C-alpha cells in the first residue's frame, strides 16, 4: 500500500484542451478517495494518468515514494477496474484472475492460492471455469474486482465501476465495495459522476470541474460547507436551492431578505463565517438545502432558529420515506455559471421545462407524515442555522475557511 500524490498535474490534449489543470491532490495511504464531477471534468483523465494509460503533460505523480511519471503502467504496481470491466473474453474467470500473476512469473501454487482466496471473497467459486460471456453484469463486475485484488497492488484505481449495473445491484455492490475496502485497506481512487456513490463510498471526496480542483474534504464537510456555488449545487440530491437575496441588519437583528420573505440570520452564523458582516446591505446568493426545510405541522411547533415561511406547493414527489415539495418563489432564478454547470451533470444537454417562468423553482424535503398535496398552501419551516451565503460575482462561499482572504 502507498499514498498517491499529484503535484500540479496537467493534461493538455492536442488542440490545447486542458483536461486537467494544475491538480494538487494527496491520497493518503489506505484512503478511499473519490473523484467526482460532471462529465468532461477531467476525473477519468486524472485516474488514467495515475494508471499510466495517459501521458502526463506537466507536474508530477508520486506513488509510494517513487515518481512514476515515466513508468509504464505495468511497473506502477496498481490495478484498475474499468467501467466495461475489460475482462479477457477468451479466458475463463480463473484465467482472467490469474493472467496478471502468470505474467509476473509467480509460482503456480501461489497463483492458485490467491485466485481461490479472491474467488471466495467475491463469491465467484462456482464460476471459475466459465467464460465472461456466460456471466451476468454483476458477476463480471466481481471478476473485474477480483482481477485487481489478486494482484495485491499498492493501489486500486476504479473508473466508474458500477455505472453499467442496474440500480438495485449498484446499491448492493456499493456496500460490498465498502466492506472490501475496510477489509483490504488498500489505497483506492474511485471515479464517478454519481454524487451518491461519492458520498457513500469516499473517505474523502475530490470535486473537479473543467479540470480544476474545487474542493477536497470528507463527504459530510462537502455537504455542510461547500466552498463555492458549484460544489453546493453538485453535491446533494435534490440539489441546493439558490436565490439572490439581500443581507440586512436592523433593530431586530440581522436577516436575509428575498422574494418577500425575511429569514433572521443567527449571530452564531456571523461567528462561523468571518467576513459575512461585510456583506450587510449588499446583494448575495442565498443557498438552502432541501433537507433544511420541514413541514411546519410535522415539525411540531417551533424549534429554536426555525422560521416559518408560507408557500404554495406546485408539485409533490412522494418517495415513501419523504416528500419532495416543489414550489416557486417570487424571484428570478440564479443564472450563475457555477449553478448552471452543477446542474449539467448528465451527458445530455438537459434543460428543465420552463414551468416556473422567471421564478425560481425550489425544492423542500419534508417528512412523509406531511400530507401536502399539489396546489395546496403549506407552511414550511427553515433551519436558519444552515443557511449558505455566496458572493454574487465570484460564486465563492462567504466565510468558508478556504475562501477567507481570497
Amino acid at each position: 500500500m502507498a499514498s498517491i500524490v499529484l503535484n500540479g498535474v496537467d493534461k493538455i490534449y492536442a488542440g490545447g484542451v486542458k483536461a486537467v489543470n494544475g491538480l494538487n491532490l494527496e491520497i493518503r495511504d489506505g484512503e478511499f478517495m473519490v473523484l467526482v464531477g460532471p462529465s468532461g471534468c477531467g476525473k477519468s483523465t486524472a485516474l488514467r494518468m495515475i494508471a499510466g494509460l495517459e501521458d502526463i503533460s506537466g507536474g508530477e505523480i508520486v506513488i509510494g515514494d517513487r515518481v512514476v511519471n515515466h513508468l509504464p503502467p505495468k511497473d506502477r504496481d496498481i490495478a484498475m477496474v474499468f467501467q466495461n470491466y475489460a475482462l479477457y473474453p477468451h479466458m475463463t474467470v480463473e484465467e482472467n484472475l490469474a493472467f496478471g500473476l502468470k505474467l509476473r512469473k509467480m509460482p503456480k501454487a501461489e497463483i492458485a492460492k490467491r485466485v481461490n482466496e479472491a474467488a471466495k471473497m467475491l463469491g465467484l467459486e462456482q464460476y471459475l471455469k466459465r467464460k465472461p460471456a456466460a456471466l451476468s453484469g454483476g458477476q463480471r463486475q466481481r471478476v473485474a474486482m477480483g482481477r485487481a485484488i489478486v494482484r495485491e497492488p499498492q493501489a486500486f484505481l476504479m473508473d466508474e465501476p458500477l455505472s453499467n449495473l442496474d440500480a438495485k445491484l449498484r446499491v448492493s455492490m456499493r456496500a460490498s465495495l465498502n466492506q472490501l475496502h475496510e477489509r483490504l485497506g488498500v489505497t483506492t481512487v474511485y471515479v464517478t459522476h454519481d454524487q451518491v456513490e461519492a458520498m457513500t463510498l469516499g473517505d474523502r471526496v475530490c470535486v473537479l470541474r473543467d479540470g480544476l480542483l474545487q474542493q477536497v474534504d470528507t463527504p459530510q464537510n462537502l455537504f455542510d460547507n461547500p466552498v463555492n456555488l458549484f460544489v453546493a449545487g453538485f453535491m446533494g440530491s435534490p440539489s441546493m436551492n439558490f436565490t439572490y437575496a439581500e443581507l440586512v441588519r436592523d433593530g431586530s437583528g440581522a436577516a436575509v431578505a428575498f422574494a418577500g420573505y425575511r429569514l433572521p440570520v443567527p449571530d452564531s452564523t456571523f461567528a462561523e463565517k468571518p467576513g459575512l458582516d461585510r456583506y450587510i446591505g449588499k446583494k448575495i446568493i442565498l443557498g438552502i438545502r432541501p433537507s433544511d426545510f420541514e413541514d411546519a405541522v410535522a415539525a411540531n411547533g417551533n424549534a429554536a432558529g426555525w422560521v416559518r415561511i408560507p408557500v404554495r406547493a406546485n408539485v409533490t414527489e412522494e418517495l415513501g420515506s419523504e416528500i419532495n415539495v416543489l414550489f416557486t418563489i417570487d424571484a428570478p432564478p440564479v443564472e450563475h455559471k457555477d449553478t448552471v454547470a452543477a446542474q449539467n451533470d448528465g451527458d445530455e444537454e438537459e434543460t428543465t421545462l420552463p414551468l416556473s417562468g422567471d421564478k425560481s423553482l425550489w425544492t423542500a424535503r419534508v417528512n412523509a407524515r406531511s400530507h401536502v398535496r399539489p396546489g395546496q398552501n403549506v407552511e414550511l419551516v427553515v433551519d436558519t442555522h444552515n443557511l449558505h451565503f455566496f458572493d454574487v460575482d465570484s460564486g465563492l462561499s462567504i466565510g468558508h475557511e478556504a475562501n477567507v482572504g481570497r
Partner: protein
Amino acid sequence: MRHGKLSQASSPMALRRYGFILSFLAAPLVLYVVFVIAPYIQAFQIALTNWKGISPDFDYVGLENFGRMFDDDVFWQAVRHHGLLLLVMPLATIAIALFFSFLLNVGGGQANGRRTGVRGSAFYKIVFFFPQVLAVAIVGVLFQAILRPDKTGVINNALGAVGVDPVGWLINPDLALWTIMGVMVWQAVGFYVVLFSAGMSSIPSEVFEAAALDGAGRFTLFFKITLPLLWDTLQVGWVYLGIAAFDGFALVQVLSVDRGGPDNATTVLPLEIWRQAFTFSKYGYASAMGVALFFLTLTFAVLTLRVTRRERIEF
C-alpha cells in the same frame, strides 16, 4: 386468422412487397444456378465422355478419363503444387498481415489515451492495399519486369550492384514455384492487413489497457490477447486463402515461363484444365480434372471449418 392472412397475402400491397423481395432473391439465384451449379453438373457429365468440344458427337466412356488422370504425372505435379501452396501461402500471408496490422493498430503504444499504430500508419494502410487494386494480369506483367533473369530485371540489377550473380527467379525449376508464391503473398497481404485491422479495432481498447496494467508487453499482448480475440477473422482469412491456393491460374499463366513451366514446375490444376480443354481439345479429360479440383476444394473448406471451430467470443 387463416382467412385474415390469406386476404393480407392477396392484397395488392402484400403482393408488391413479396414481389419486391422475390425479385431480389430471384436474380442472384438464377445467376448462381445458370453460371455455377449448372456448369458443375455439366462438368460431371462431360467428365464421363470423350467430347472434343467442337463436334456435337461424343461417347460415354465411363471412368476412363479419371483412370487416365490418376496415371498422369502432370496432374499429380499440379496437385503437389497445390499442396505446397496450401501449406505455405496462407500461412505466410496471414503471418505477415498479422504482423503489419498489429504494428499499424496496436504497436505504437499510447497517444492521447488511445492505443495507436506506429507513426504514419494511416498512410501505410493505403499503401499496403495497392496490390489488391491491381488486376492480376498487371501484377504478372509487373513482376515479369522485376524478376527478369538477366541484369535488366529489377531484383537482379540490385543484386548485381552488390556483386551477386543473376538469379533465374522464374527459369530455375527449383525456384520458380517459390517465386510465384512470393508474388501471391505480396498481392494478398494488403487485403488481409485491412481485414485484420478491422478485426483488431473491434476489440475494446480497455482490454488492451487491462492487459498492459496486468504486465503484458507487446509480445504477450499479441500472442495472449490479440491473436485469440482475432481467431474468427483469422479463420475467414484462412479459408479464403486456402481456396485461393487452389486457383493461381491467372498469375501462373501470365508470369511463369511457358505457362506453368519450366518443365511444369509451376503448373496448377486450373491451368492444366485450361490447357487440356483449349489447347488439346480434350474436354472430357479437362472436366474430369475439374471434378477432382471441385472435391479438393470442398474437402479443404469442410476440414478447415471443422478443425478451427471454436466457441464464439463475445465482448
